[in-house]
């Protein structure tokens, strides 16, 4: 399929492909087995300027768009989605500053991220996830700055990131309208890390609790203004969600390739498995799902890059569709590879484990169906 990528996009896609093949592939099974955060690989990605693609040129970035980020995430995820999400979560952590940060905040933090500092975004709590209005972490303004108290959970890059954007309530009486976003540095006094989660998949990525006990954050680290936290969050997630779609797409692509590879070699009934009609049908089904997902993910990324103001619906569609494809394709890929697909010596079981989270995080597919339906109702309302 011809997606009319620019020269720059082709270059960064092939660079990400090469790094994935040469540096990530040899270690992905070990990273997964040991649940080891891929610090050195992320440094290599940064040294290759890949952290710069989502940062504006003015702040030492390369000013790339959503599609640029998606192409890199897809290529990394094709080999290891745990590495891909650790990379993408830095973009997630940076988006609040890129979209809503003050000039001073941008000048201070974006060049650091561009050169390889890892970032993270902290929203989820034990009582707040898809329902962001359940946030209980508080931020109280004092003459010294804001004092944060509360615990965030399931935070990707938690403990590994240097720069965090955290959503906390500055006014408990106002619900979501009382939420505000802050930049918190790793060494802020009163900021510690709780338990590291053990997960089914993306095991090399770090998922950890962030604990704030009277954590002092300078007043100038408030993003936008008090009460904007919910809007910042929604906009950040609209922007970052295509990255998760690309992660799902990469997993599906990797699984399809592995399935084609194995079934071409495995001889049963005197012929390679791929010669059997039942296997061919499944592989063809994978190919058409993967390509349909790619067409949608790229189209949504290009829509965002065209400068449209609202893209909640498109962003949700790409994420839901691609993640469902990733789950289905990986399950089918394990199935056509039989026993080998189930074994840890082969990459497919990991891909199947990794796929599941893409249906869950950055807005569960259920809550995103809801978001799409809301847009449908809004449009119907406008027509009447």
């Amino acid at each position, binding site marked *: 399929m011809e997606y009319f990528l620019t020269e720059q996009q082709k270059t960064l896609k092939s*660079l990400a492909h090469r*790094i994935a093949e040469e540096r990530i592939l040899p270690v992905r099974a070990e990273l997964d087995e040991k649940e080891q955060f891929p610090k050195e690989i992320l440094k290599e990605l940064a040294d290759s300027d890949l952290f*710069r693609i989502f940062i504006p040129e003015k702040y030492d970035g*390369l000013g790339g768009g959503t599609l640029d980020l998606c192409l890199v995430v897809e290529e990394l995820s094709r080999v290891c989605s745990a590495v891909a999400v650790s990379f993408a979560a830095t973009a997630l952590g940076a988006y609040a500053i890129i979209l809503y940060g003050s000039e001073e905040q941008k000048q201070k933090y974006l060049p650091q991220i561009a050169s390889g500092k890892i970032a993270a975004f902290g929203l989820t709590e034990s009582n707040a996830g898809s329902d962001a209005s359940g946030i209980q972490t508080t931020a109280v303004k004092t003459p010294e700055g804001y004092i944060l108290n509360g615990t965030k959970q399931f935070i990707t890059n938690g403990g590994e990131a240097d720069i965090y954007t955290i959503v906390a309530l500055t006014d408990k009486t106002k619900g979501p309208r009382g939420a505000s976003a802050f930049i918190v540095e790793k060494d802020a006094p009163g900021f510690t890390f709780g338990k590291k989660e053990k997960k089914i998949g993306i095991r090399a990525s770090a998922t950890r609790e962030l604990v704030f006990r009277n954590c002092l954050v300078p007043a100038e680290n408030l993003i936008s203004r008090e009460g904007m936290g919910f809007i910042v969050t929604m906009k950040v997630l609209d922007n970052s969600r295509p990255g998760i779609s690309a992660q799902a797409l990469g997993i599906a692509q990797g699984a399809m390739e592995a399935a084609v590879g194995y079934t071409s070699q495995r001889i049963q009934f005197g012929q390679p498995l791929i010669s059997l009609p039942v296997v061919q049908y499944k592989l063809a089904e994978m190919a058409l799902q993967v390509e349909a997902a790619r067409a949608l993910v790229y189209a949504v990324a290009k829509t965002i890059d065209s400068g449209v103001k609202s893209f909640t619906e498109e962003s949700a569609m790409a994420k839901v569709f691609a993640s469902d494809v990733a789950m289905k394709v990986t399950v089918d890929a394990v199935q056509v590879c039989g026993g080998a697909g189930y074994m840890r010596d082969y990459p497919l079981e990991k891909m199947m484990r990794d796929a599941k989270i893409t249906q869950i995080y950055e807005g569960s597919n259920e809550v995103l169906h809801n978001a799409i339906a809301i847009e449908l109702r809004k449009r119907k309302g406008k027509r009447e």
Partner: protein
Amino acid sequence: MNVIVCLKQVPGTTEVKIDPNTNTLIRQGIKAIVNPFDSYALEEGVRLKEKHGGKVTAISMGPPQAADMLKDAISVGADEAVLLSDMAFAGSDTLATAAALGKAVEKIKNYDLIICGRQTIDGDTGQVGPELAENLGIPFIAYVSKIEEIGNGKIRVQRAVEDGHETIEASLPAVITVAKEINVPRMPSLRGLSKSKSAQIPTWTANDIDAPKETIGQAGSGTWVVKVFYPQRIQHAEMLKGEPEVQAKALIEKLKEAKMI
């Protein structure tokens, strides 16, 4: 710290085929790559530049398409690159290659260190580095696995020898050849790739570097390839029969006959 790194483009395969009529490598259909040992040399040069300042100049002698390899060198941190390409260089052995490289180095001037890979994976001679040092009349150290210190007109390096490590000091400028233990070459960066795309690689001919005709190409070569052939593959097996004791005795007899024991 100005560093010159010598690179060679080699066939990216372990299955080298030879044209029996011309005694040369069949390069068609085989992707050319940078000699892997040379990529360690380049990486070390770039690291020295990053630490001490200065610039890295990559040079290569080869056909015009070797310019692509020099562009790749720019994508991983070389500042400049020069290609020596001229029919007058054709048929050069290591002696003639080192003569041409030496003249090019003299033209580049202002250098503190020249780094080469320990050998190429096609010719495998490991001679060009030392011959280059000889031509330039400067010190040479082979198989360097670590640069311990460099500066104030001196370089101190480690190199692996059979029963340990040697630490060697030499005055600068000098030529070193590096082993793969020295570093892990980096991936290109996006900014490097964009720089390499627009980079112009100057091509120098024999005239440009004032290389006397008798020192380069076939005329300057001390060796000629007379014949290239595949080793004959002889497969011959004799199966011993009988009980293990009988077979063992028979085997001992055979080995004695062959004067192997």
